[in-house]
């Protein structure tokens, strides 16, 4: 059985000694933890000391009026239930070794502020209010930290939990991983319809527009992101529209033997027609453009050369001539190249055709073209002229037999017959390029078709002949 000895603690910074002013207990008294047992006077003030132990007072080791050094045992307490033997020398580790040394007591073991339990009231020991005793201050709390009760989803100071993003007008709102995803999928964020709070573009908005869910959906962001280094290269994963385009072009180019023919012609009258139609009240609600006239011309020209509106059926070993024209329009969109078509374009009047064309282009520009709108085309027009080029060698949309590229319409010198003979005058000129599948179409038919379209554009009145 060990008696607990309470040593005079440091009660203030730099304290070395104190006078025992008066005992509040006597041997045989029962004491509880933190009961005041003694009043001492230091150089600074009178201090009441609480008892760190519960039990029975075995002995008062220092008489009232005596001055003792810090670290001197002043009271011995027998733990509850124990007999009260005579006091014994301290066996346990002293806590405040420096103080003990100051007090010229027999030196305590080395393990001072470390492993052992430190007596209450000494530095590192328990202090009132669930704290640890220190020389300076009330001491750090030893009580366990708990989360305060929370009110719903609102943050404390009334601040909304969901941040409301603010961006300059006209700027898209998307957080960095979504921007990265859009970049990877080739999606222009300007074309994405945001569904997030406050107009924020979410990951699924981007994926919806790209057509296919990202293979990284569900995996943590950034894990497979290839870092971009200055002077290096940017690696763009081939997926979505890009992948579809690539596959279709390879299939077409290496299946259908392509022939491309060119025709450069004076389309001044077509341009005049476009201007006239633009001024026409009946066409006020639709967009009139050279493309519209070309579309009409193609619809007319296939009547004479239906082989251009056909398909090669490999399995049946047949050429299938289509009875209606589903006119595909190649459109550069934020998602990449898409070719939606106007079903039954040949049966439409010019106004209806203009309306259908406007709607199709609008949907494509918004990136909302549905797969069904891209299926079943029979002939395609690609308007590369909007990029300012003179035409090119278009590759057939797979399954189709003809594709017409329309170059830019620009002012060029042109030789015309006038009353004073031939003259070079500025005219509206464009270049057409027709590619066709030589399995279906021979040069004679292809040339006739291209010439017909050309004639319709250089002299729209010849449409009367069809």
């Amino acid at each position: 059985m060990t008696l607990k000895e309470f040593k005079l603690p440091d009660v203030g910074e730099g304290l070395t000694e104190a006078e025992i002013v008066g005992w509040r207990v006597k041997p045989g008294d029962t004491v509880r933890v933190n009961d005041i047992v003694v009043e001492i006077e230091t150089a600074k003030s009178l201090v009441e000391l609480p008892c760190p132990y519960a039990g029975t007072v075995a002995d008062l080791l220092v008489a009232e009026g005596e001055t003792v050094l810090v670290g001197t045992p002043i009271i011995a307490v027998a733990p509850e239930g124990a007999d009260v033997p005579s006091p014994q020398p301290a066996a346990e580790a002293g806590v405040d070794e420096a103080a003990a040394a100051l007090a010229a007591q027999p030196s305590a073991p080395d393990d001072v502020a470390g492993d052992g339990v430190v007596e209450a009231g000494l530095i590192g020991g328990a202090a009132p209010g669930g704290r640890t005793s220190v020389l300076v201050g009330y001491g750090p709390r030893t009580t366990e930290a708990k989360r305060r009760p929370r009110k719903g989803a609102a943050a404390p100071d009334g601040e909304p939990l969901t941040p409301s993003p603010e961006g300059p007008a006209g700027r898209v709102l998307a957080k960095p991983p979504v921007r990265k995803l859009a970049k990877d999928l080739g999606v222009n964020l300007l074309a994405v319809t945001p569904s997030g709070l406050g107009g924020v573009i979410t990951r699924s908005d981007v994926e919806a527009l790209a057509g296919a869910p990202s293979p990284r959906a569900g995996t943590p962001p950034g894990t497979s992101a290839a870092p971009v280094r200055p002077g290096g290269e940017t690696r763009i994963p081939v997926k979505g529209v890009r992948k579809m385009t690539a596959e279709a072009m390879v299939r077409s180019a290496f299946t259908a033997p392509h022939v491309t023919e060119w025709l450069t012609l004076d389309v001044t009258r077509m341009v005049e027609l476009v201007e006239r139609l633009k001024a026409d009240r009946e066409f006020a609600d639709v967009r009139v453009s050279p493309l519209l006239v070309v579309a009409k011309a193609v619809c007319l020209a296939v009547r004479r050369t239906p082989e251009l509106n056909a398909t090669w059926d490999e399995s049946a070993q047949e050429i299938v001539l289509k009875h209606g024209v589903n006119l595909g329009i190649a459109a550069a969109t934020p998602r990449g190249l898409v070719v939606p078509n106007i079903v039954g374009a040949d049966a439409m009047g010019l106004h209806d055709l203009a309306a259908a064309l406007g709607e199709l282009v609008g949907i494509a520009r918004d990136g909302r073209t549905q797969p069904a709108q891209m299926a079943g085309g029979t002939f395609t027009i690609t308007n590369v002229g909007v990029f300012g080029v003179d035409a090119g060698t278009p590759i057939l949309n797979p399954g189709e037999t003809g594709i017409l590229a329309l170059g830019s319409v620009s002012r060029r010198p042109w030789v015309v017959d006038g009353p004073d003979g031939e003259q070079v005058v500025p005219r509206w000129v464009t270049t057409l390029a027709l590619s066709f599948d030589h399995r279906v179409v021979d040069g004679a038919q292809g040339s006739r078709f291209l010439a017909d379209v050309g004639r319709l554009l250089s002299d729209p009145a010849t449409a009367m002949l069809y």
Partner: protein
Amino acid sequence: MSTITLAKALNDGLRASMEGDAKVVVMGEDVGKLGGVFRVTDGLQKDFGEDRVIDTPLSESGIIGTAVGLAMRGYRPVCEIQFDGFVYPAYDQIVSQVAKLHFRSGGRLPMPIVIRIPFGGGIGAVEHHSESPEAQFAHTAGLKVVACSNAADAYWMIQQAIACDDPVVFLEPKRRYWEKANLDREAAPAPLLSSKVVRDGTDVTVLAYGPMVKTCLESAIAAAEGGTSIEVIDLRTLSPLDLEPVYASVRRTGRVVVVHEAVVNLGIGAEVAARITEQCFYALESPVLRVGGFDTPYPPSRIEEEYLPDLDRVLDAVDRSLAY
């Protein structure tokens, strides 16, 4: 393996360094006879003598200036600044001499000085006793700045800091001095200038150092009850920063909260946030958020708990991060 308080672990670490190298000297106010106000140097003067454990006058400038001279003559002084708020008289010596002499002398005069600073609040102390001046030193080229958060790290880091040939500002979380941890004296310690993941998580990365590490670990436990998985990284070294483990974590979680007691304005968190933004931009699901002291002098101790970041302020930031 033993259980030991942070203060005792530092004491043991200092003792080990002094035993291992006779050039290691400890100096500071009350570090000798008293054993330091936090008992970190307890018993060292008795065992190593007054020549190696020196009670200095109350002059921080003098302590550091003397250490500079000792370092020039091949000693490894370990200076104790009694409280964070007392370091400013020594600031000129630290910034103008300690940090620059190695550079100024073209590499001929290394400054293997350790400046121990008990830092941070939470002990109910008076003015000048609860400050967090780490950013002022981290901003000074030529100084290394580290902060221990637990007893095991404290034991190793103080020895590594003393062994380091460069000056090290060694920050000790004074309110954690009596926190106990297991210490394996046989284990190989992590490098001094390295950060460490101290709790794995998947939803939000929380960065802290010194006294806030425990607060963040408590926050992580509380958050786990609500189903949020917080990864806690102890930065340990503030200059140079070791952020590769942080980048790896952020690339997984996409969300970061930086926590320190020091004021948020131009604090360590600001630099950490900037670097994360540079390195992990496309991984960031939310802005890097900071939790720290308010932009005021440290308040009177009766209201310090309103000032200090606590479990709730950390978790509020975690919630805000997750709301994006």
